[in-house]
């Protein structure tokens, strides 16, 4: 054991200085984030439950794709006697999400919009007060599985199954697939594949065989994705099959909320208004509710029905202000149906057209 302290080596000193500089950079970043966070108005800030659920869902989706692509690519490589490369791919699991986040890719507007909507929808549906039609009466969706109209019954069964799958996936954090709309799924698969390749190149160097295996695995994931299996799509098919008449619409919507089937509620409303599911979902999860009330008036619903729906949503979502709604209810009920329809007309435009208009509007406010 030496009594003389080790002489610090020159490269060690360099590393310390570099670390000191990096720390300064991090402190700056932390301060900026603190300033942004502190001055975020409450109505735009994510609440903790949503933030947590969102983070879990994002991690689960990226994790599922990551595992899926690596596993299949490794299988291809193993089939080509490139076991070492296969194992290197499998061993590299993890880190993809951090890499994509760092690159700013996961902050994709469309992706986050979809995930926030899904999470908010799940949280609201989960907290909706259950209302039973009558004691011993089966719940709405179960009754729909038994109607004589085979199309409705089949769609209702599919929805029961899809919601069961979705709930288990949410709870366990283990997804079978992304359950994203095709376009988003497509984008995300290639990002994940790119991050996997980048890490593989960094660890064992570039290799054409590995590249081909990753691409094949990604394409397989794309081919296996069927956006028609998603709970949202199944709910739309059910709403289309039910095709509620004007006089059936109010009771059906109220029952859907009472059965805590928010997806079905959204789908039925979307079908009635001739809009896409995501458009109506966005209105339903808005805590202010102003556009939803317009939508309900456009569908010709009366004051009491609108009040019932608003009350249930307010019980489920602490961000909502039922007292303010009560103040405005007379005005809301007074809106003529045609006027409400006109006000919402832009929402019935083609989705791409709406996105383009939104992008223009954003550019203007910048």
């Amino acid at each position: 054991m030496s009594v003389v302290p080790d002489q610090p080596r020159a490269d060690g000193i360099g590393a310390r200085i570099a670390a000191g500089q990096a720390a300064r950079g991090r402190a700056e970043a932390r301060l900026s984030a603190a300033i942004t966070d502190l001055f975020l108005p409450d109505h735009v800030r994510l609440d903790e439950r949503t933030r947590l659920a969102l983070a879990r869902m994002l991690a689960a989706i990226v994790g599922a794709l990551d595992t899926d692509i690596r596993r299949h690519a490794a299988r291809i490589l193993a089939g080509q006697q490139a076991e070492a490369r296969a194992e290197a791919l499998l061993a590299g699991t993890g880190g993809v999400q951090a890499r994509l986040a760092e690159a700013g890719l996961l902050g994709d507007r469309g992706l986050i919009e979809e995930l926030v909507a899904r999470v908010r929808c799940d949280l609201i549906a989960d907290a909706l007060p259950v209302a039973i039609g009558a004691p011993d009466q089966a719940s709405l969706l179960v009754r729909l599985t038994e109607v004589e109209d085979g199309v409705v019954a089949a769609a209702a069964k599919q929805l029961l199954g899809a919601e069961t799958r979705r709930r288990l996936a949410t709870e366990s954090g283990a997804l079978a697939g992304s359950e994203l709309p095709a376009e988003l799924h497509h984008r995300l698969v290639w990002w994940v594949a790119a991050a996997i390749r980048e890490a593989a190149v960094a660890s064992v160097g570039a290799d054409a065989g590995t590249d081909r295996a990753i691409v094949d695995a990604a394409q397989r994931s794309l081919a296996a994705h069927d956006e028609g299996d998603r709970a949202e799509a199944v709910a739309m098919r059910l709403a289309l099959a039910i095709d509620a008449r004007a006089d059936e619409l109010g009771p059906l919507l109220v029952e859907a909320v009472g059965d805590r089937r928010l997806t079905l509620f959204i789908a039925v409303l979307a079908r009635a208004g001739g809009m896409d599911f995501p458009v109506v979902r966005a209105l339903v999860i808005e805590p202010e509710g102003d556009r939803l009330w317009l939508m309900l008036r456009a569908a010709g619903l009366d004051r009491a029905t609108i009040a019932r729906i608003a009350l249930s949503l307010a019980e489920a979502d602490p961000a909502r202000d039922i007292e303010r709604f009560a103040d405005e209810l007379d005005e809301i009920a007074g809106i003529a149906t045609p006027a409400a329809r006109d006000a919402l007309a832009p929402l019935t435009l083609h989705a791409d057209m709406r996105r383009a208009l939104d992008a223009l509007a954003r550019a203007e406010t910048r």
Partner: protein
Amino acid sequence: MKVDNSPLDVPVSHALVDAAGLLVSADPAIATLNAHAGGAIGAPLAVAPIATVARLARRLGIVVSRGVLVADDDVDLDLWVRAQPEGEGVRLAIGGWRETRMRGAPTRDPAIDVSVGDADLRWDCDAALRLTFVSIGAGRRLGLDPFAFLGRPLTTLFQLDEDGEGALPLLDAVARRRQLGAQRATLRGSDRRVTLSAAVRQDDAGAFAGFVGAARLTDPAPVAAAAMPATFTEGLDKALRAPLARIIANADTINAATDGPVQQDYVDYAADIANAGRHLLGLVDDLVDLQGIERADFALTPEPIDLADVARRAAGLLSVRASNAGVAIARPLPALSVPATGDFRRALQIMVNLLGNAVRYSPDGSVVTVTALDDGKVATAIVADQGKGIAVEDQTRIFGKFERVDPSEAGGNGLGLYIARRLARAMGGDLVVESAPGDGARFILTLPR
């Protein structure tokens, strides 16, 4: 567990609030609660959470049903409030009085008590016991196609076994809207034995709206269960529990008038039937209790308790029922503390039983006094009423099985005092009575310090 079961037989109470939010009329229970909060007839409703529901219903023009937690002296009342706009005003129906619980006492929230995390199979069902959720992976591991069961009756998935007394715990849980502890069953299509447990989902009006359940694989039923000593209670329990559960469920259905308007008289009869049914179920509980305490191995776990606190809590639990009967309860001052050794819940059970009796036998306008004393050797709690008293020759008899203070009086099943004394003695204390006809009765509970 008796305390949670004891039906504080206050039925649904009604009140009328006018367009300005002023209380027009109120049943005794609501009037009392309102008076405790500083309100009166003709003044604004003083119980804030209830006033909020009433105001919201009036402004929205629809029925608003909501569970509210109302603080009343020492206890929190878990009430459900149904506010129905009527003309310019609002009609209030408030129920759930019997669900009162002590403030700070552990809640028996079924959603918390029933853990599903370690379940072998999870399931949900709706009010009609149709499956709305079955865990997929677990189902497949058990050789089932979970999707095939969605929307189907619960009994297509599980074949339910009757318990030792010939009843189905699941139906009992539905009738009482209580969490399901253990329902033994067989998984259909296999001979796998499971035990089902579930939390109850209730709608805003407190009606049964479904289960959130779990199934755990179990070994074949232990044969020891069949070797239980056969006593008369088994037969009674078997004969009563299932039909009673059915009667209560049907009476509640009629009472809720969910199938359409029902003439008010019948709605009230239905409430009476349901209450009578719950009372009888309470008797069945007592009998089961009895069986427990008469076993040779019955033991309690003594711990330091505050008998004055127990007395105050019991008084709090019965204050609404006492108000309904026009009886006041004078309770120990908040600062008083009387250390004793005993089982908290059992001591409370005894005090609730004594106070319940005292309220039942007290004339309108009288006072029931609860005092607690510490003489340095034993802790004593005394419940004194101003009723007609108990003759000396009856003072031993009333502690017997199925004996009543006044056999001509309705209510009470004649087991309460017997159980109370057995419990007091099991804690190393005693329960005695002092009374002279016309001079009221004093029940004296002593516990070691």
